């Protein structure tokens, strides 16, 4: 796993400086910049959300974010720069939990790579969120990963409980 020195991967408790991230990634060869900004919304399945609490396995999350960046570059060599910042801790409505920016000469690559990055991040990066409702709280259930590298439950299932 080699991460390109100009790419940016961060995990932080502080609010994400999106504009700063974008500025640091913008090079003169870029013609398109696509940014995904995941923000805390005030509802989930009709239920009113007060805030979200993110918990991270921080050192591993950072490793996985870098791995994801390398994977994106392998799939889309035309990517000029990629940056991923994930926040953890307690987040209010409309605060950003994750920001992913991809630049490239042409827009198609930037869109595809950015969408792939957020889809993949949600499978591989060890971060968990809990929804805080007005009258309770609940961990958001993640999907069982489709990735062979992560699929472990078969082996566990075959053991007696």
């Amino acid at each position, binding site marked *: 796993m080699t991460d390109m020195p100009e790419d940016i991967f961060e995990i932080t408790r502080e609010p994400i400086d999106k504009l700063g991230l974008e500025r640091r990634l913008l090079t003169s060869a870029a013609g398109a910049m696509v940014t995904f900004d995941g923000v805390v919304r005030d509802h989930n399945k009709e239920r009113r959300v007060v805030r979200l609490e993110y918990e991270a*396995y921080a050192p*591993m999350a950072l490793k996985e974010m870098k791995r994801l960046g390398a994977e994106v570059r392998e799939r889309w060599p035309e990517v000029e720069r990629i940056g991923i910042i994930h926040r953890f801790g307690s987040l209010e409505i409309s605060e950003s939990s994750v920001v992913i920016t991809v630049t490239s000469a042409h827009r198609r690559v930037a869109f595809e790579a950015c969408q792939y990055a957020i889809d993949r991040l949600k499978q*591989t990066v*060890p971060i968990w969120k809990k929804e805080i409702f007005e009258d309770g709280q609940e961990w958001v259930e*993640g999907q069982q990963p489709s990735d062979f590298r992560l699929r472990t439950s078969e082996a*566990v299932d075959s053991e007696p409980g």
Partner: protein
Amino acid sequence: MKIMVLLFGACREAAGTHQWECEIEAPADVKRVFAATRERFPELDRFEPVALFAVNEEHARADQPLRDGDTLAIFPPVSGG
């Protein structure tokens, strides 16, 4: 041998702790330490069908062997983003 076990998310909350040190006889693998962890924290039993693992900060399968001093993380499917 000693394995440092880390728990995250709903697993951490269910067990009521973020980590514990598991003493276990060699040879051990992920699923044996997971079983020992469930014995110590029976609240983790309900995560048995879904739990995921990482060894030394790398995703790992249940049959991965462990060495003395390894760190095993146990957690539910991730839900970041």
